[in-house]
């Protein structure tokens, strides 16, 4: 399962590498508001990509358009070279795109373990009618639960665990199918600093093992620390891309955030 490994942040100022996710002219309007305005963006394979921008810049709408939670008005989306424009969300997920939600979503009345097992997709009708769990599936789920640190909660209902634990569960279940690209919508939202730290470490570990990430975040510290390729959005379109250093010194970025 060889995959391209990322380059360390800060050593290059130009962006090189294969595109894991690319959009062309993506547009989505609500009434008269152009939430996403002709956005053509590239995110790189093997890296921890970041997508930042001030409030209302269209990051989450962009995110939802790419994952097809909402239908864009026009434009194209390419996932690892394949044109996935118009694919249904579950097809895109099967093509190797995992995602988390801004307001953490888990299956509330299923146990933590059951939550994890939903991601394991049966292939044939015969498999569909198998018992809902087997040793191999459960073993893998337990490994992942252990990795994110909530294996002791395996039999608790997801609605009974704390928000932070739900976030870890959401992350774990997204990783279960081993997607090459994982998109996280504000992974640090609403959790305490030590948990953010835990998540950051996990992302770095997984990235080293070959998973590409795309993180939408407001937490600048986290972005600057984790991401080696950052795209800045403003008013529905990208205004700057590059490494953390490049972004931080770009006057357009400052202007977007500070209105200076």
């Amino acid at each position, binding site marked *: 399962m060889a995959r391209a490994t990322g380059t360390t942040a800060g050593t290059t100022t130009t962006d090189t590498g294969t595109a894991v996710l690319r959009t062309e002219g993506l547009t989505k309007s609500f009434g008269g508001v152009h939430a996403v305005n002709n956005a053509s963006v590239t995110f790189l394979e093997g890296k921890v990509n970041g997508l930042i921008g001030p409030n209302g810049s269209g990051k989450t709408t962009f995110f939802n358009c790419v994952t097809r939670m909402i239908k864009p008005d026009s434009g194209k989306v390419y996932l690892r070279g394949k044109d996935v424009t118009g694919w*249904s969300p*579950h097809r895109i997920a099967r093509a190797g795109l995992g995602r988390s939600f801004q307001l953490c*979503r888990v299956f509330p009345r299923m146990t933590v373990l059951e939550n994890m097992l939903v991601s394991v997709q049966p292939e044939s009708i015969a498999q569909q009618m198998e*018992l809902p769990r087997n*040793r191999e599936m459960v073993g893998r789920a337990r490994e992942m639960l252990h990795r994110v*640190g909530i294996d002791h909660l395996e039999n608790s209902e997801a609605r009974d665990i*704390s928000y932070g634990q739900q976030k870890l569960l959401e992350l774990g279940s997204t990783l279960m199918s081993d997607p090459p690209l994982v998109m996280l919508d504000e992974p640090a939202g609403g959790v305490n600093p*030590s948990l953010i730290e835990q998540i950051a470490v996990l992302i770095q570990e997984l990235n080293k093992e070959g998973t590409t990430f795309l993180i939408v975040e407001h937490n600048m510290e986290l972005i600057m620390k984790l991401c080696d390729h950052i795209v800045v959005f403003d008013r529905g379109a990208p205004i700057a891309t590059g490494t953390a250093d490049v972004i931080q010194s770009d006057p357009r970025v400052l202007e977007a955030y500070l209105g200076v």
Partner: protein
Amino acid sequence: MRSVSETRAARTAAQSGAAGGGSPGRLRPTVIILLVAGVLALWPLIAGNPYMLSAGVIVLNFAVFATAWNIMGGFTGYISLGHTAFFGLGAYGTALLVINWDVPSFVALLIAAVVTLVIAIPVGFAALRVRGASFVIVTIALVLVLQLVFQGWGNVTAGSAGLVVPRPFPDLLRPEHHLVFYFLFLALLVVVLVVWMLIDHSRFGAALKAVREDEDKAESLGVATGKMKLTAFAVSAFFVSLSGGLYGLWFGDLDPIFQFDVVLSVQVVLMALLGGIRYLFGPLVGAIIVGAALEYFLLNFGETQFHLVATGLLLAAVVLFVPDGVLTGLAQLIGRFKPQAASIREQSAEELRDEREASKAKKVEAEKVETRQAEAQQSKEEDRG
């Protein structure tokens, strides 16, 4: 002093036991279904007169209908008020096949159900384009439009004049007629219960339940929600159609107003809700309670409008006070007598990490002990050899 291999075997055994643990097999529920069927089979002995027996037939009919409905409603959470359409299609389909083409009754039953299944696919596809309230509206519309169609098509369906269905066993007296059909319905009930149970204990069922819990999330995890929902819809339509066809053969008289009646849909949903839609026997329990209540109202208040009021009151009461159903309440009651699971909500991330470190340390220790034992064993064997 255990050998390395023994210890490893013990660990694997423990793991596999745990892996299977919490996920009951399909044998036990099947046995329970047969036991319940056995108990229900005693009703004809208890029933004092043919009327009580026929009441039993009606209740079983409701039970089959409600359980089949629950294949869609219980697993996906999509409440369809339109399954009466499939009931009616099964009834009329069977009747028309027997009348016009002399098809043997029970063959006609199956053919009608297959035809209904085929119809249910595009209908379900259209209906499932929307969710929640829109879905309910669409399913209601389905029943209403079929009522219109079957009334309008008088030359085919005899419209409001009523269609008489030839009896499959014309020589039987009424009591025997009810008896035979009681057991036919009971057999059909067993089949539908087994199907529900199989889905409940399958990955297909797990996917459906994920749709119920959070459809968008399920999609984002790669679950083909559209296909899943449509399959559940079609399967439930098939079995509802069977119950409709069997009803037609038993009752012998069909009328669009009664066969395509939205109130019947609501009564069936009421039964499933009252019993508990997450439980195998929920719809059956609901059918017994509501069916018995409806028969009681009919006996005491006749054909007046009071039974409408009563149905409405019962429905309102269930929605307001027992929305999770009787069996859920029972399960919670039983759960209260079991040992409590510790509350884990308040654990902070630090405590979490400390715990992990502690258990990791313990595991490392245990492994060290094992390796030491293994080495000791090996050196012993080397000494021997």
